[in-house]
């Protein structure tokens, strides 16, 4: 039996996070809005209406094209009409781009767990409008046009993926990048990032591409992985059984987790593309492209490598710290303010700051705790001014108040107690109150020292320097 490999290419649809739709002023936000409310004559294709292009759509699409290293961004790209009948397409054509898209020839280096990476070609990027939404009920289709005219970038990759897992990893990276660039909210469940997958298999070692199937309508990364995996397995079973793969279009039913075949009549394609006469070409001057490139932020993968190289933090830390742009900015600003060991900052950010971010359901930049304040807290712990327990509590207090860490420590008397006479007094008091434990310790149960330190911490409200407390306790117990 020959060994098979899977060949997968993706067609992703990315919803740009503009306020208004691509060709009209209707709001793009229709999550949980009643059907057919965010609609107007333009996005419902009433007779006589014309499209008027949203400036931000062009700008955001251009940002994505440059981030995808597209080496050919058209100076004049054209809109085209893709003509077909479908009830979610009110004009009977979709305004899209065809022979002269915004950009072609990009690439993305997808890191793989083995440490190497997969080179993913981005064949093209183009701008288009979204169609409406269909809900099935009994023998009817119910149509909601709220989503009609929401701006999309369609990004097509080469057949470069070799497993369902790689596809899922790519989508995670893509989602990260889109949010990083602040051009899409990229929430798959809300349809802001969608993915059709072209799947075929071949014998390992072969170069040719076999007949592929196309999986449509998948709305989460897990579902994409499951759908692609189940299609790879189906094709392998089919070929092993001597069958033939047919160029089907498959519909993923996310409720039941099964693929179904769309009726061929429904997928028959003769789109008769032609230039959209209602819109002028998109002009993208070389200077506009240069400006976009120069304003592009450092991208997540580049920042990840820089973090581990420059700051010497583990790959694992760098990965988590660059998952999201605001967090990585926060980390870096804290390191700069702190000036000491970046790994120590990383520990604080990954453990305590991330917990706060999750609790507050916010971004690092909007947490209310500034990098300088975190650096100050870490510094105080390192200097022994406060205990690390107090430091952790300070995070929340600083976040929710206007006071600086130093003010809080001073005004609330949180500074660590390492003064020997003060500690000796407390220690003597504890020994006096616990004669049984003292006897046990003296009888050889020296492990009880931990318990005594605990009592000291409790007594001092956590302010005792545990190291100093231990030394004093030991000298008193053994004296």
């Amino acid at each position: 039996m020959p060994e098979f490999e899977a060949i997968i290419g993706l067609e992703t649809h990315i919803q740009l996070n503009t306020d208004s739709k691509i060709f009209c002023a209707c709001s793009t936000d229709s999550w949980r809005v009643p059907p057919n409310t965010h609609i107007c004559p333009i996005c419902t294709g009433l007779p006589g209406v014309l499209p008027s292009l949203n400036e931000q759509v062009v700008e955001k699409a251009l940002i994505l094209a440059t981030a995808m290293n597209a080496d050919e961004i058209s100076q004049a790209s054209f809109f085209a009409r893709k003509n077909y009948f479908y009830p979610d397409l009110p004009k009977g054509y979709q305004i899209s781009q065809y022979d002269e898209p915004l950009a072609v020839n990009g690439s993305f280096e997808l890191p793989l767990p083995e440490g190497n990476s997969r080179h993913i070609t981005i064949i093209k990027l183009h701008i288009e409008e979204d169609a409406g939404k269909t809900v099935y009920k009994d023998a009817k289709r119910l149509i909601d046009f709220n989503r009609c005219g929401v701006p999309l970038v369609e990004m097509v990759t080469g057949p470069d993926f070799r497993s369902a897992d790689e596809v899922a990893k790519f989508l995670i990276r893509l989602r990260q990048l889109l949010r990083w660039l602040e051009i899409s909210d990229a929430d798959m469940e809300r349809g802001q990032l969608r993915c059709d997958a072209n799947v075929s298999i071949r014998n390992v070692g072969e170069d040719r591409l076999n007949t592929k199937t196309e999986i449509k309508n998948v709305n989460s990364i897990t579902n994409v992985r499951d759908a692609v995996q189940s299609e790879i397995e189906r094709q392998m079973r089919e070929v092993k059984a001597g069958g033939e793969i047919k160029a089907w279009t498959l519909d993923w039913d996310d409720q039941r987790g099964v693929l179904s075949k769309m009726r061929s009549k429904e997928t028959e394609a003769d789109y008769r593309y032609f230039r959209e006469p209602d819109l002028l070409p998109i002009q993208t001057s070389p200077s506009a492209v240069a400006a976009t490139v120069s304003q592009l932020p450092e991208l997540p993968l580049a920042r990840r490598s820089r973090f581990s190289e420059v700051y010497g933090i583990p790959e694992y830390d760098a990965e988590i710290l660059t998952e999201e742009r605001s967090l990585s900015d926060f980390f870096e600003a804290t390191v700069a303010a702190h000036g000491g060991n970046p790994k120590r900052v990383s520990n604080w950010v990954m453990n305590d700051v991330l917990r706060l971010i999750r609790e507050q359901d916010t971004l690092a930049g909007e947490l209310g705790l500034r990098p300088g304040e975190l650096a100050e807290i870490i510094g105080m712990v390192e200097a022994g001014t406060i205990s690390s327990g107090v430091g952790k509590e300070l995070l929340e207090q600083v976040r929710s108040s206007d006071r600086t860490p130093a003010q809080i420590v001073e005004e609330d008397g949180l500074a660590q107690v390492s003064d020997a006479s003060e500690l000796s007094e407390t220690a003597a008091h504890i020994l006096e109150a616990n004669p049984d434990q003292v006897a046990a310790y003296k009888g050889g149960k020296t492990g009880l020292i931990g318990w005594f330190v605990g009592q000291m911490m409790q007594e001092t409200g956590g302010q005792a320097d545990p190291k100093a407390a231990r030394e004093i306790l030991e000298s008193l117990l053994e004296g």
Partner: protein
Amino acid sequence: MSAEICELPAHEIVARLRTGDLTAEVVLEATLARIEAVEGGGGALNGDPNGANGIHAYITLAEERARAQARAVDRALEAGDNPGLLAGVPVAVKDIFCVSGIASTAGSKILANFVSPYTATPVVRLEAAGALTIGKANLDEFTYGSSNESSAFLPTPRNPWSAGHVPGGSSGGSAAAVAAGEAALSLGTDTSGSIRQPAAFCGIVGMKPTYGRVSRYGMIAFASSLDCPGPMARNVKDAGLMLLAMAGADAFDATAAKVPVEDYLDQIEGGVRGMRIGLSPDFSRLRYPDADTGELREQVLQPEIEKALLESAERLAEQGAEIVEGVDLPAVQYGIPAYFVISRVEAASNLHRYDGVKYGYRSEGEAADLFELYRKSRGQGFGSQPKLRILMGMYVSGEQYEKRYYERALRVRTLIRRDFERAFERVDAMLAPTTPTTAFEIGGIYGDSVAMQYADLLTVPANHAGIPAISIPTGLDDSGLPIGMQLMGPDFTERRLLRMGRALEQLQESRPPLVQERVGA
């Protein structure tokens, strides 16, 4: 003839309203009375094709809307406010423009019950200028024709100069209404001649502005790269006034050019002295395909039209224009074949949206599935002219034909454009007949889609080139039918074309015979 109020030029109505000599309500009532006298009933679905020997210019009358507008104009006048450029002027809107709250039918069964929730930009601007929207004028179905006979709303409009002749098309109802005094102005559309040809047939002025001069927003699209809304009027000055009220960029039309709008009236009496006006043999050599063999035959112009062309040139020369003969425009002969391709591709796509789902006609009875609903609704809702355009558009834009036909046609359009660019290096405008013949008889051509298209032979080159063109009435032929001459100029030279047109126009001294029959000579 004693001029009635409904026959006053629009600019005179505006002037007399301002002096207090007239009120908008008086103008409106006079116009409604004229409609009552001559219309003989408007077009209706399943109407009597033979009609009642009236003009039948309208599909829908909007008396209530017009009355409210007239009252508003009169109130503004009383309050001393500026009532607008077109205060109190009754305007017939070709029923291809959406007007909020009124049926917007496009002359088709498929939109017969469609009431638009919004109003087209040119209509918004006319109404803002104080115009009274008196009704929606009949037209060829979706503007597809040159005779107005393809409308689903019967009877179709008659030529006011002869009940047996068509008013031209597709803005046939518009031209007939203006010629018969049923409106002072009409808003038409010109994709291959649909303003100029009926204007010529009915003895009025019609102007196709530069592409992008007037917003297309709210105009139900035919061939989007060619469609131009424009004014139809009984005289050149009124056409200029109407254009002034409508022209200019529009946030709702990405192709409406950001070119400043000139004052079309301040120099309109300035004459043509020193202007160079070209004549081209290519607008006199007419190539038609033979109906039986399909072979191309060359024909000459109708002799009276040839004569009118020379007289027009002389008239302009007498006023000091320099007539430049022999300006070559060799590519204009391909205007119709290229138009057959371009307009059908765009039309087929523009007609995709009519499917019985969102608005308009939906087939009766249960449909077995979605596609049957589409087929039945479209099959029953469209007349044969839209169907022809859809099918031809499907054919020539199919992947395997796209380069052979569509792309080739777009390159031929480049040739036509270049011909005009070269010509306008030598002359300020081209003068040519608007139509190869005067109005033809009802039923004479209708049904022969090729012959009907060739009625636009002389008008379509300006649409391909995007340039402005104005048709001017220059007299009657031997059988008493009007003749029109057109002036074509470089992009955005409407002001100069109107000035030339003013020098050329010969206003009719008599009422059209159909109007005479009803209201006297």
